[in-house]
Every structure is written in structure tokens, then in C-alpha cells.
């Protein structure tokens, strides 16, 4: 009795298929006939691998996948920026071949093993995306301010109401600060940026900041916004607003220089890489599991320890060896000088290659894949 309508619906589906087929492959996805990359030194690879995870990496992933497509035109790499939490879960279940995550796997997770990995295979985890987090503000005509960690803590706790508060003016002689209300904007969603920001506050403003580091903003109340772009849009449209965002997204706003040791340091890729270099590896992890205990209180000259480090995770040995080859190729590109430069150009991140010790550890870990 439903034959006719089923037929109509089936026709609609078929029409959709035909439409799609007519449209053909997207113009930018056509693979060149000989498939030879531009002087790629690596062996020719082909296949598809899926990754998922941190949305903080998405602009960098875009750059890496774009760059890798030029080297290995027959490889398709997907990256779904679902978020670190779901990304880790999917990798654990074997749904994706690699994962991007703002928070490394716990040792318990590592011991429990991963879905795509061969039995007994270890985890390869390397920092690939190092980005300064900027305390960005919207004050007419002011592009830079000195803000001490305690001042930043008080701003985000709602204890500083006006921009011409003595705590701010004391650190900024010569700057004419307005009587504008301070509107501190935090992330409404769970995020790695919030965790890194609160971690930095907890380490640097112990007395003023009573909360533990957390992915969810720990203070009740205040202005909240969805995603980095929500914070950026809110700060941009509101005079007197201030928020913490990935440096790559804060270009139109004023930036706070933070106090490191005795000096004021502005966010820069070099300073971020330097802060990673000043940090030590987390203990109890395998050589291939390059995870840092970030040294938030470093006093090294020029280091900017308010940073986000995002990792890529993969198996040492895959159940499917072909997959292993693809992941190895991709990770080698991502951690190479070219890959890091591409990410810096599109996402404003810090090339990890600028720190020699770091770079060496990462390449030896990546070399163990496959």
C-alpha cells in the first residue's frame, strides 16, 4: 500500500545520487594521473586514514593535510575536530587511526591498550602543536598591557571591576587606562584552553587563584562564550572585555604581556617553544610517549609559559600494517620542518623544530611507528 510513495522516495534518492555523481569528484580532490608528488623523498603511499580529536589543532591539521596531499597525492587523511575527549575515546575503541588531544592519555589508558594497535604495541604520543594562549582585551587605542598573574587571576575572579584599578595601573605607568568596566569572558564549553589557562593561573598566582586546573571553567558566574570564536566575537564587540584565546585567533585585539621572572613577556611562537624547552618530560612513560610536565613557573628569559601543547597519538605497531605506514608518513611530515612551518603559517603556532632537544625526541618517537 505504500508502494507508490516508496517509489517516489526511491526516485528522490536516486536523483540525489545522480546529482552527486554528475557533480563528480570535487575539483580539488582529483588525483593527478602519474600520482607523483613534488620530489617526495619517501616511498609512494596510498590509502585513507582517519583521525579525530582536539579542535585546537584543526587549523594546523588543515595545513598539514594540505601539505601532505602535495607530497603523497594518493593518501587521504581525514581529521574530525570532535574534541579531545571524544577523540581519545574513539582512538581507544579503534574507531580512528590517530588522535589529536590537548590532554595526554593517562598511564591507565595506556596500560589498557588501544583498538587499532597490534597486541603489545606501545603508544606513540608527541607534542605537535604548541601555541601561546593570549589574554586578549578590547580597550580603545591600547594594544599592549602588562598584567601580572595575580592581576589576571583577580580579573577572572571578578575582583577587579574597572580597568583603571590600581592593580592594573601600577604595572602600566604611562598608559592612560579608562574607567571602563572589566568584562572577563571565559569558555562555556569544556576545553583544553581553559585547562591550560587555569593550570598556569594555579601555578603562578597560588594565593589569588583557589581553583584546581580543569577543562571546565571552575568559577561560578561571569561572562561565558561557546568555543574560541565565541570568546573572540564577544571580546571584539564589547569595549572593556577580556578573554583568554589561542594567539592565532586574537590578531585584532590588545594583548597582555605577562610577568615571567622579573620581566614582562609578550606572547610569541618563540617564547612558547622556549617554555616547552624549559619543561621536563613526564616520568614513568615510555620513550615513545613524549609528554611534558609543562614548567609554568619558568623564569628563563623570553619564555612564555602560558601555552597550550596539543599532542598527536598513534600506535607503535598497527594491526593493519598498511595503516601503520600511512600514519608514519603523515607523522613524519607533521613533525618535519616543513610541516611545522605550514602550521605556523595557517594557525600561528610555534614550530617545535626551533627547540633542538624537543625536536630530536619527537623524531625518534615518530620513527618507531610502523
Amino acid at each position, binding site marked *: 500500500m505504500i508502494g507508490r510513495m516508496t517509489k517516489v522516495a526511491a526516485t528522490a534518492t536516486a536523483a540525489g545520487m545522480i546529482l552527486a555523481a554528475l557533480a563528480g569528484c570535487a575539483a580539488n580532490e582529483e588525483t593527478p594521473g602519474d600520482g607523483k608528488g613534488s620530489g617526495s623523498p619517501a616511498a609512494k603511499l596510498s590509502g585513507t586514514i582517519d583521525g579525530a580529536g582536539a579542535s585546537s589543532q584543526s587549523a594546523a591539521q588543515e595545513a598539514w593535510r594540505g601539505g601532505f596531499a602535495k607530497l603523497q597525492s594518493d593518501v587521504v587523511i581525514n581529521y574530525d575536530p570532535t*574534541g579531545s575527549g*571524544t577523540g581519545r575515546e574513539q582512538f581507544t575503541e579503534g574507531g580512528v587511526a590517530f588522535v589529536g588531544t590537548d590532554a595526554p592519555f593517562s598511564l591507565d589508558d595506556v596500560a589498557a591498550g588501544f583498538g587499532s594497535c597490534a597486541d603489545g604495541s606501545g603508544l606513540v604520543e608527541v607534542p605537535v602543536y604548541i601555541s601561546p594562549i593570549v589574554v586578549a582585551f578590547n580597550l580603545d587605542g591600547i594594544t599592549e598591557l602588562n598584567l601580572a598573574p595575580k592581576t589576571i587571576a583577580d580579573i577572572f575572579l571578578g575582583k577587579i571591576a574597572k580597568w583603571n584599578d590600581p592593580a592594573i595601573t601600577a604595572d602600566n605607568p604611562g598608559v592612560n587606562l579608562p574607567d571602563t568596566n572589566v568584562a572577563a569572558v571565559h569558555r562555556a564549553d569544556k576545553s583544553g584552553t581553559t585547562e591550560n589557562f587555569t593550570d598556569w593561573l594555579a601555578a603562578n598566582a597560588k594565593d589569588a587563584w583557589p581553583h584546581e586546573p580543569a577543562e571546565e571553567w571552575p568559577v*561560578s*558566574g561571569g561572562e*561565558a562564550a*561557546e568555543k574560541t570564536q565565541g570568546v573572540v566575537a*564577544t571580546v571584539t*564587540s564589547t569595549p572593556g*572585555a577580556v578573554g583568554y584565546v589561542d594567539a592565532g585567533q586574537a590578531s585584532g585585539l590588545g594583548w597582555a604581556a605577562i610577568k615571567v621572572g622579573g620581566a614582562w613577556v609578550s606572547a610569541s611562537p618563540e617564547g612558547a617553544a622556549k617554555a616547552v624547552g624549559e619543561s621536563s618530560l613526564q616520568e614513568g612513560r615510555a620513550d615513545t610517549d613524549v609528554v611534558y610536565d609543562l614548567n609554568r613557573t619558568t623564569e628563563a628569559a623570553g619564555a612564555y609559559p602560558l601555552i597550550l601543547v596539543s599532542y598527536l597519538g598513534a600506535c607503535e605497531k598497527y594491526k593493519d600494517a598498511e595503516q601503520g605506514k600511512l600514519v608514519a608518513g603523515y607523522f613524519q611530515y607533521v613533525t618535519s620542518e616543513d610541516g611545522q612551518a605550514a602550521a605556523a603559517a595557517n594557525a600561528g603556532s610555534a614550530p617545535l623544530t626551533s627547540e633542538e632537544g624537543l625536536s630530536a625526541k619527537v623524531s625518534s618517537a615518530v620513527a618507531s611507528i610502523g
Partner: protein
Amino acid sequence: MAVLAVLAGVLIFLAVEGGPAVFYKQGALPAHATSFWQLAGPLAFGSLWVAVIALAFAAPPAIGVALAATVYAPNQRFGRLLAAVLDLLAAVPSVVFGLWGLMILAPLMGPVDAWLGRYLPWLPFFAGPPSPTGRTVLTAGLVVAVMILPIMAAMCRETFALTPTTLMEAGLALGATRWEMVRWAVLPGARSGMVAGAMLGFGRALGETMAVAMVLSPTPFLVSVNVISSDNPATIAAFIASTFPESRGKQVGALIGLGLVLFGVSLLISVIGRRIGRKAVPA
């Protein structure tokens, strides 16, 4: 029967994955909640509150537009044009409403909030302190109001159009002004349709996700009727959307449990709505 199976399926999947969350303790729950209901209660309030505001803003213009398209329309062409415009408004996807609310409406609402906080602070709704960004429950309610307006107007339009022409003409012939004719001949008979439209709109408003998530500045666990401050109650749907990506394991279960609560709330509302609708028409 197939429909029954689908519905049963929906309930079973939700209950199996989300049901146990009711008993979760701190640690397994998002936002450091100590019990499931500590989280769900205020969120349910937030959802209802946004929906109430949206309904309050959407109902008068929806009825007005529906009247314009039927009784007040100079000719049929105009009525049809208006219906098409409403359909166009209904066609705007919710993310676009979110972008518009965040980038265009919220900055405009900042001064409005400040004005309300200054001159009407004795009303609990405008207790303030006013939000400087305009990303308040008031703004979110307005955005959702625009989103549910077309469906409500369409329902009202349909029922207004059902008013017998003879009845309307009789009213006018008796010397009634056009408004009196509407008041005595059109509105009473359309009451159940208007209530149904309002309930449908309310249901949509309850479940609206992306637009609210993008526009509202939420504070979990907060229950407050203050509509102009930076601290606003969060809604279930928006909370799920913004917490889901970074959740795993039991926390996902807790979010599905929240979905179940939202389902329950909107079911309750639709049952109440049907009661009102039935009472409105004396049989």
C-alpha cells in the same frame, strides 16, 4: 505500529545509555556536579525559562502576522506573499540564527540591558548587574522567539482562515469595526488553534540547541529570573551540545540522561498544552 516501534526504540536507547546516569555521583558527572539532579534541575529550569521568554516575545507578533495574512490582507496575493516570507524565515538554519544573534543582535542588546538595569531595577527580571556584552537570557529568548515565530504564525493563520466568511461578514454588516469583528468572531473560534501553535512553538524553543549555545552566556547550576545579567541559567540542549565533544564514557551517559530529562519536560509541556487546548473549546 512502525511509529510505535520507532518511539519505543528511541526511549529504550536513551534509557539504556542514559538511565543509569541518574545514580552517578561526583566524578562521573560533567561540570563537577555532586548529583545528577543538582545538574539537571537548574538546567531544566533554564530550558523552560528561555522557552517562556521566547513564547512571550513571539506570540503577539505571530498572531498579528497571522491576522495580517488573513483578515487584514488587502487581497489574496498579499496573504500568500506574507506566508512565503514566513516560510523563508523558517528556512534559516539554526546556526545562522546563532551567528546573527552573536554578532548582530547581542551587541545591540548591550545598551538595552544597561537601560533596563538602570530604570527598572526594582523588577526581579531586571535586577542586573546588566551584562556589557548583551549575551543574556533576554537576547537568547529573542533569537529563539524569531525562530519559533514562523511555525506559530502558520498555525494561527490556518485556524484564522477557517473562520466562516459568513460569520465575519455578518459581524461587519452589524456595524462592527474590523477589530471588533476579529475580537468577537475570529479569535474565540481560533483559540484552540492558537494554543496548539503556541505549544508547538514552546516545544521547539525548549529543544533549541545551537542558537542558544552560541548566543547565551551560561552559568551551570544557576536558577535566576534575572534576564539582563552575565550570569544566566544554562539550558539542557545547549549544555549537551557544548559539553559533548570533550566528554567520554560515563559523562556521555550523563549527557544522554540529560537528554531524557529534556524529553520528559517537553512531553509534560505538550500534555499540559493539550489540556489547555481542549478546555479552550467548549465541546
